[in-house]
């Protein structure tokens, strides 16, 4: 089934799962941010795949993919700004240690 719609969608699903796993398993805020980017790129791969294999979706796919890229860039910007802000206060990027409010 190589070269089929299903194969690429499975790849996108695998990438997305790696992203989810990274987000849940890593304790470094930057690594979690990277995992989110991986998830968004998996979404983009799925979108481009639909565009490549389903003729009716071809024109829409590139527009949607571009939009997702723009959103991902915006999210990364805000995220890095917040990580820098908390690093200045706490001197650590490890989310385990952000526990001032735990009851």
């Amino acid at each position, binding site marked *: 089934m190589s070269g089929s719609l299903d194969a690429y969608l499975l790849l996108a699903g695998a990438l*997305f799962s790696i992203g989810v796993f990274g987000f849940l398993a890593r304790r470094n805020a930057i690594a979690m941010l990277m995992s*989110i980017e991986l998830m968004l790129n998996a979404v983009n791969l799925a*979108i481009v795949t639909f565009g490549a294999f389903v003729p009716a*979706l071809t024109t829409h796919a590139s527009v949607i993919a571009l939009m*997702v890229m723009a959103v991902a860039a915006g999210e990364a910007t805000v995220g890095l700004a*917040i990580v820098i802000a908390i690093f200045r206060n*706490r001197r650590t990027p490890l989310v385990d240690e*952000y526990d*001032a*409010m735990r009851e």
Partner: protein
Amino acid sequence: MTSADLTALAPLLAVLGVAILVLAVDFVLPGRDDLAVALGVVGIVVVGAVTWATGGGVDGAIQSAFGGSYAVDAATTFLDLVFVVIALITLLVAPDYLGPRGLPFAEFTVTLLFAISGAFLIAGSADLLVLFLGLELLVLPGYMLAGFHKREGLSTEGAIKYFLLGSFSSAIFLFGLAFVWGFTGTTRIAEVAAALAGGPLGPGLAMGLAFLTAGAAFKIAAVPFHYWTPDAYQGSPTPVTAYLSTGPKVAAFALILRVFVESLGGIRAEWVGAIVVLAALTMTLGNLVALTQSNLKRMLAYSSIAHTGYILVGLAAFAAEPAGDPSRSGLEGILFYTAAYAFMNLGAFAVVSALQRRPGVTSEIGTYAGLIRREPVAAVLMALFLLSLVGIPPTAGFFGKAYVILAAVQSTDPAVVALAVLAVLNAAAAAFYYLRVVVFMFMREAPEGMPPVGLGGILRERRLFLLWTGLAAAGVGTVVLGLYPVPILEMVVKAAAALVAPG
């Protein structure tokens, strides 16, 4: 672009215009916070007037723009007006909190207004892509607002938790959206509904639907997707918490109305079970954990989770309706509840914001002892908001709860009727922790020698005048929606009709 397009876009353009105006004025005249306050408050009132004047559904007509991807119907106008109220009360209450702490007000206004423009975009989206853009435009400024007190550890800690889980859930939602688009071949909400109408659900679409549900559940903070809520709400500056607990929540319900009711409404038998479980878990866990909290902001955060559960009861009541011509009372319940919730929750957080760090008061419940003697008006208002959150007549909260629970009781689905019973039990349990605060304020004595709280002097200090105006607005809303809900009910009925109207 035609003039019809402009009419549909007028509220959105107005809110963006005000935001850009405040930004520009702050560039030219930096540090003039009083000017930013005036422009922001007057601007949002103008936005409200524009929304009202150009609103859809006055005669049942739907105005659309951008080739039909943005449409203003009665539901859009109703939700937009709720957002305007939320923004207005937040802007009135905020200067008193931000000013003494050295936080810039112009940036606050601009960030808040951009977030509101995202909420407007969600409320009017007729296309899943526009909906996602609106969602991002709503949450990105929200993350910034949560970390607005950037030199304070708690604020940035709340912000990073909000950001990480928020963008995680956005990615999940987007993944679901990509699959729904891929397998239905369209992003238009009406066309997705039409594509789903024929035939059973394929595996790809089912997966897309599951991801959409999980993403939306994160955004409304439904259990078990609620972990970010208490920390984000407790850590944020209190006026921001007031906004975060109402604005993004109402917007997330607007998203649910567009995606689940309009686009996936035809296959509601497929997702009603998930909503029933989410609603039951959300209200029960929210209330149980709220019982044990000693910090008022954290308690109100868990209480807002519980209220999400009550609103979901309305959604479950709609989803359990048989195919064909469904009863709309569940949807009407959701819409009315969001308006009532906006007033009472904003009011409660506004009182906390006003009192925080005034002499002898923090956000710990114990410091509210004897408040009735120290600051009687604030204590009475707080009691009003808390009683409304409990759901005691004749307040807005009572009507909201009655509406969703009645809709659920009338359902033919036994699971939804059981959910209504659970909601009533929950409301009774919740009374305990809300009334505990009232007991502290009215029946305990303050420690000896406490200075006055110092919220008087309305006429001398402009910030206090704005604060009391905001509190009064929330109080009047809470009472009026309870005593004379007829005008709002008329709007709600029209809005719900627009949501299930064919086409």
